[in-house]
């Protein structure tokens, strides 16, 4: 069959586009190279929905940042994405940085971002008693929030799929071609697809995809960001996102009160060569902690429970690359760097407009279902609710993850809704994300993955591909017989 639209890339941008397109009578396929959506840049995102004041108005990013921020509000409600609008403080430690804060304030006010205020030290410390005494001023932006970026990505994909979009994982695009009547052929190892339109949302590899399409007029440079997640014990150290004063290259290293109530610090911003290099480093850790200790002195490396790194897709153009190209039917949603997560719902809306302009007929479906079922999260319920839930379904009374109190019912629900790797289950349920980092629950989750999918545990992987977890025991007797 010929699809109307093939979206390449199942990060937050591709999934937001898929979900936006699922409102219409269209045949849409989303192709993701990894085993599950969101396993690339999106899963390692800092998880900030920016206030809307950061990006310059003259860029593509400026208006999309604020528009995206506003679109996330209803989306998180409909899809049940973990989100808290905690607000952000951009702080100045040098007198000359106060000027930058004033510029940000003016930019935000001009854009209509509500609630922006410049705070004096006294007000800052009243709100955030653990913040450094060296901070001279701060820009308070109540519209900023924190989100689970992997959850956002996979729930956008799930919503799209429930509304008819086909989501195909393990589909690395190998070749792209279009014929005379502008039908595109998209080749993957498993399958070849045809489509009228191709949307390039391939993130880090969007330059490669554009090149395959014959319009490779930009490059994407990976910019690494290391993040460090701290123990629950220090939850509450800050209640707002704390930003240092931004530089032209980066918004700096932040102190983030995550959706789940823990504290995360990062990211670094290091330009590197390899698009596969997601290694954390001693230097990165050192940089992060030295930097955030200037903002919040009580933060310590001793409290790290997990670290990870992601690669931002930094385009050579310095701005989002959104729109049609010289090849008819090939649309870019490329170079989506920060504030990409924030902007993604607005980027999706813009891509739909672009597709319409390019000749894709749009007819709204009257059976579009904007909401997803919100599965019960055992750990967040009251005792009474827990008792009732377990009475109705005993698998809600069987514990899988002891650190985060995740139950068998939640894990099987995640698997039935499409998670099929250990990381996938972890991102959907938090099983394995706590202090013991899966020491206790890994086997239980593996058994459930095997049972629900009817596969042996030896086929369960951490994140697809060659990421096997266990091997069968060698049987010395049969080996002897064989030799």
């Amino acid at each position, binding site marked *: 069959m010929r699809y109307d639209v093939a979206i390449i890339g199942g990060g937050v941008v591709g999934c937001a586009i898929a979900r936006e397109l699922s409102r219409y009578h269209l045949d849409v396929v989303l192709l993701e190279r990894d085993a599950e959506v969101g396993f690339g840049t999106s899963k390692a995102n800092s998880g900030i929905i920016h206030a809307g004041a950061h990006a310059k108005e003259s860029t593509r990013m400026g208006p999309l940042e604020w528009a995206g921020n506003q679109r996330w509000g209803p989306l998180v409600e409909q899809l049940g994405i973990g989100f808290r609008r905690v607000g952000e403080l951009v702080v100045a430690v040098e007198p000359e940085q106060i000027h930058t804060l004033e510029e940000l304030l003016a930019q935000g006010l001009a854009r209509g971002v509500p609630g922006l205020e410049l705070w004096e030290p006294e007000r800052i410390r009243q709100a955030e008693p653990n913040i450094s005494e060296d901070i001279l001023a701060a820009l308070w932006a109540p519209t900023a929030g924190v989100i689970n970026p992997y959850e956002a990505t996979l729930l956008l994909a799930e919503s799209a799929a429930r509304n008819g979009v086909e989501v195909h994982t393990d589909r690395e695009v190998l070749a792209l071609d279009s014929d005379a009547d502008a039908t595109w052929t998209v080749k993957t190892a498993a399958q070849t697809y045809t489509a009228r339109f191709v949307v390039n949302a391939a993130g880090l590899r969007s330059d490669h995809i554009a090149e395959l399409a014959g319009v490779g007029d930009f490059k994407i440079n990976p910019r690494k960001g290391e993040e460090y997640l701290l123990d629950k014990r220090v939850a509450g150290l800050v209640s707002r996102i704390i930003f240092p004063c931004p530089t032209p290259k980066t918004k700096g290293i932040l102190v983030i009160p995550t959706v789940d109530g823990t504290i995360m610090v990062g990211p670094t911003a290091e330009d590197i060569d390899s698009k596969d*290099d997601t290694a954390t480093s001693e230097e990165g850790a050192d940089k992060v902690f030295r930097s955030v200790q200037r903002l919040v002195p009580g933060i310590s490396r001793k409290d790290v429970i997990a670290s990870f790194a992601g690669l931002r897709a930094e385009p050579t153009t310095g701005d989002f690359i959104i729109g049609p190209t010289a090849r008819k039917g090939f649309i870019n949603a490329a170079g989506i760097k920060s504030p990409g997560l924030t902007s993604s719902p607005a980027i999706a809306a813009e891509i739909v407009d672009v597709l319409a302009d390019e000749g894709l007929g749009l007819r709204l479906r009257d059976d579009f279902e904007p909401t997803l079922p919100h599965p019960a999260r055992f750990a967040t319920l009251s005792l009474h609710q*827990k008792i009732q839930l377990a009475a109705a379904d005993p698998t809600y009374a069987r514990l899988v993850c002891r650190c985060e109190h995740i139950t068998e019912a939640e894990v099987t629900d995640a698997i039935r809704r499409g998670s099929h790797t250990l990381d996938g289950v972890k991102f959907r349920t938090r099983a394995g994300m706590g202090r013991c980092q899966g020491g206790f629950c*890994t086997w239980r989750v593996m058994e459930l993955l095997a049972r629900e999918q009817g596969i042996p545990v030896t086929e369960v992987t951490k994140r697809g591909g060659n*990421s096997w977890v266990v091997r069968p025991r060698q049987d010395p007797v049969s080996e002897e017989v064989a030799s």
Partner: protein
Amino acid sequence: MTMTTQPRHLASYYDVLVVGGGPAGLAAALGARETGAERVLVVDRELEAGGILLQCIHSGFGLRYFREEITGPEYAERSLEQALESHVDVLSDAFVFDVTEDRTVAIMSPTVGVATTTAASVVLAMGARERTRGAIAIPGTRPAGVLTAGLAQKLVNLHGYLPGRRVAILGSGDIGLIMARRLTLEGIDVVGVFELMPHANGLSRNIVQCLDDFDIPLHLSTTVVDIVGHDRVEKVTVAPVDAHLTPQLDRSWDVACDTLLLSVGLIPENELSRQLGVRMDPLTNGPVVTSEMETSVPGVFAAGNVAHINDLADWVSEEALIAGRAAGRRATGQRVPADNIRVLPGRNVASVVPHSISTDRVHTLYLRVKEPMLEDSLIRLGDVHERKVRALVPAEMASIKAAPRLLEDFHGDALRIDAVPAQEVTT
């Protein structure tokens, strides 16, 4: 070994409720019954009580407590038998997710659902968990194949699967050493054990029996500085460390492997204790406990690795008996004199448990040293008592007794425990 009779219903009240059915929990329950506590319940989160012992299929257990050398599962079986014979109820496949100050205990289990009960005494016996990669912050990528030694042990011994084909081990804790031998016996290539410290962290007998006997190299003062691999571990980079434990990267080398096991220490499992708000000791990572193993929350006791990490299950059982008896006495209205002397860690002592004692009865104090003392040494209990020992290393717990006759002339309110070279004292 299925002998647990699963209670179908949770009673609304227990004299003593024990959280955790490992050697600590089972011994605590037994201790509680000895004092006359009638209704004693052990809640265990696995399908079968016994704790980590069930996956420790090697021998070397029980010499002290059962006066005979047995395997981990045998130790667990005997502990469970003792508890069941003394009419302790054991509820398995059940998890305690909350304990309040008035000792209301919230339990979840597929057999009883989510339910609450109350207890006159609660014993916390959740054991320990292993330190993870995150806790020691090894740089590198995050492929499959990096796991704790205990998880590997569970995979191999309880479920019959192998964690990899070619294994490097970081840390010389006992579980790592045991697994080096176990995996070698399974036909897996164990390429070496790398230990950051200049001394091994496991028991000496395990170094000999698990590494030396199998020609597995132990690299002291060496650590993993990088993990490489996208989907699965492909190699690790190791480097020697200097006296400040700083890796010497110019002297690093690569070790090809598909698996990295971590045996870098145990941490008392105290999620529940923290939730409950008991006072914690940052040195042991466990609750501050009296000589009766009672925490700062009255009626809540701690037993085994929850209180402090032990080397031997036997010690866990002995100490848990004390905790269980105390919990039982409290539930049945029996009293013992309160503690009147605090115990403090002194020279080269990393931690001491319990944190206080009383002058009217005999106590055993358990301690760990900070630095190894390989010459003859003395453990000193203030100025009142000292004990000569041949050597003291951080990996091996030591003990000293305090008795009424020793404390007769002591009039202070705190005793310091020191570990000092014997030579220093005699000359």
